[in-house]
């Protein structure tokens, strides 16, 4: 059995309102806001904080972790070892299993699956899965309204408060949003990508999961959908026939932070335990989708000195568009 023993989330302190971004570009209105990293924060500093929070909640020492798997699409490096650097910062032993996952936001569930596999094979007894992203959109583009920063981590162990009950993958060669090294995301036919990419892939992954597990959708109390756009998530709920009240999402408060968004929302769902204790969590990215079923056995422990996801969503400071641009470091300047 593979359990989730702990989670940790890091949401940067700063926010910018969609309205403020629109105003800068001569547009009016705008709903929601997104999290903005400080200029001296990157995927590694954010990832460390999420991971340390996860270890602290489980009262674990870095040396007790036997695997550190890291997922990110925005490290900015073509060659570097971030999982190994994270392992070092966390105080893991030198024999720790490390792996870097990327190139698709879906890689967050690839990392989760790899860690689960290592546990089921008996190779490790406790692993850490970390996702961290700092997405920077082209100024003035639609993506600028949602591309955000954040990190989250899960500790997997033999005994925890939630169990990973099922996993279904659906892969195709379809690529929606993509990005060349050092460049911004290019514009795509969003409607087509939503229909042919997102909706199609997550539906088929969910369909397979329910079949394999012999379970119906109404047995899930909470749903996490890895949607890069708020409208996509809502469309998916309608198409698949899921109760919007079951949808757990931090999108309107902190935006979309690639690989991290999936784990942040999952952590948020774990924290808001409902009477139906099953969670459906579906990742999405270029290439496909993974669907997971989790059973929450008990409420995760509250730790003194450790902020809840809810508290992190609420502790914030709004910045102007010019400060946001400076923080994005698109114009260079000091850290």
């Amino acid at each position: 059995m593979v359990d989730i023993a702990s989670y940790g989330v890091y949401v940067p302190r700063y926010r910018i309102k969609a309205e403020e971004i629109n105003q800068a570009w001569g547009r009016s209105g705008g709903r929601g806001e997104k999290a903005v990293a400080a200029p001296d924060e990157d995927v590694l500093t954010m990832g460390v904080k999420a991971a340390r929070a996860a270890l602290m909640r489980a009262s674990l020492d870095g040396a007790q972790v036997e695997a550190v798997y890291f997922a990110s699409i925005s490290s900015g490096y073509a060659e570097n070892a971030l999982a190994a650097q994270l392992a070092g910062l966390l105080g893991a032993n030198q024999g720790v299993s490390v792996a870097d996952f990327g190139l698709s936001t879906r890689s967050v569930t690839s990392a989760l699956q790899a860690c689960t596999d290592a546990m089921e094979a008996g190779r490790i007894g406790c692993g850490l899965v970390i996702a961290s992203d700092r997405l920077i959109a082209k100024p003035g583009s639609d993506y600028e309204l949602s591309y955000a920063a954040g990190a989250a981590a899960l500790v997997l162990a033999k005994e925890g408060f939630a169990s990973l009950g099922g996993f279904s993958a659906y892969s195709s060669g379809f690529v929606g949003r993509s990005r060349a090294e050092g460049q911004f995301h290019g514009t795509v036919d969003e409607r087509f990508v939503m229909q042919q990419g997102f909706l199609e892939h997550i539906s088929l992954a969910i369909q397979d999961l329910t079949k394999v597990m012999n379970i119906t959708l109404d047995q899930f109390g909470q749903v996490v959908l890895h949607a890069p756009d708020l409208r996509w998530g809502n469309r998916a709920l309608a198409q698949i026939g899921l109760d919007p009240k079951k949808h757990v999402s931090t999108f309107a408060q902190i935006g979309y932070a690639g690989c991290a968004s999936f784990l942040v929302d999952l952590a948020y769902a774990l924290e808001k335990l409902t009477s139906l204790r099953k969670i459906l969590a579906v990742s999405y990215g270029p290439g496909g989708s993974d669907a997971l079923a989790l059973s929450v056995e008990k409420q995760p422990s509250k730790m003194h000195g450790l902020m809840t996801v809810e508290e992190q969503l609420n502790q914030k400071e709004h910045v102007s568009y010019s400060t946001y641009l400076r923080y994005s470091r698109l114009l260079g300047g000091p850290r």
Partner: protein
Amino acid sequence: MTSPLVWRISRESARLIGYKCTSCGWVSFPERKRTCKRCGAAPAEFEELQMKPFGKIISFVIQHRLPEGFQTPLPLAVVEFDEGARVYGEIIDCRPEEVQVGLEVEADLRVMYEENGLDIYSYKFKPRRGSA
């Protein structure tokens, strides 16, 4: 490339590992010293100490004139960790006028600078807020 200097103290500085003098309890951070600055033991015996990320501001300056590459005004402070070690560092996540002697701060891992395209990390200090 990780430079020799960064590599030498990376474990200590990035994980807040200090060295405590076994005869008087003085804590050295991030380097392990040969002699103790407080009791004068030479050579001194030090033991590893995992420090907590908390401390308070002992003194500070607000820098207004700095070379290119620094954001000004920049608060710089001498911070004393709860374990006793004193370090010099940047104060972040607050307005310069909020900085004061005695302010409780928390060490926060941040990018310090870039070296040949590689981010180099160390601690800066932010005011302690909420349950964090």
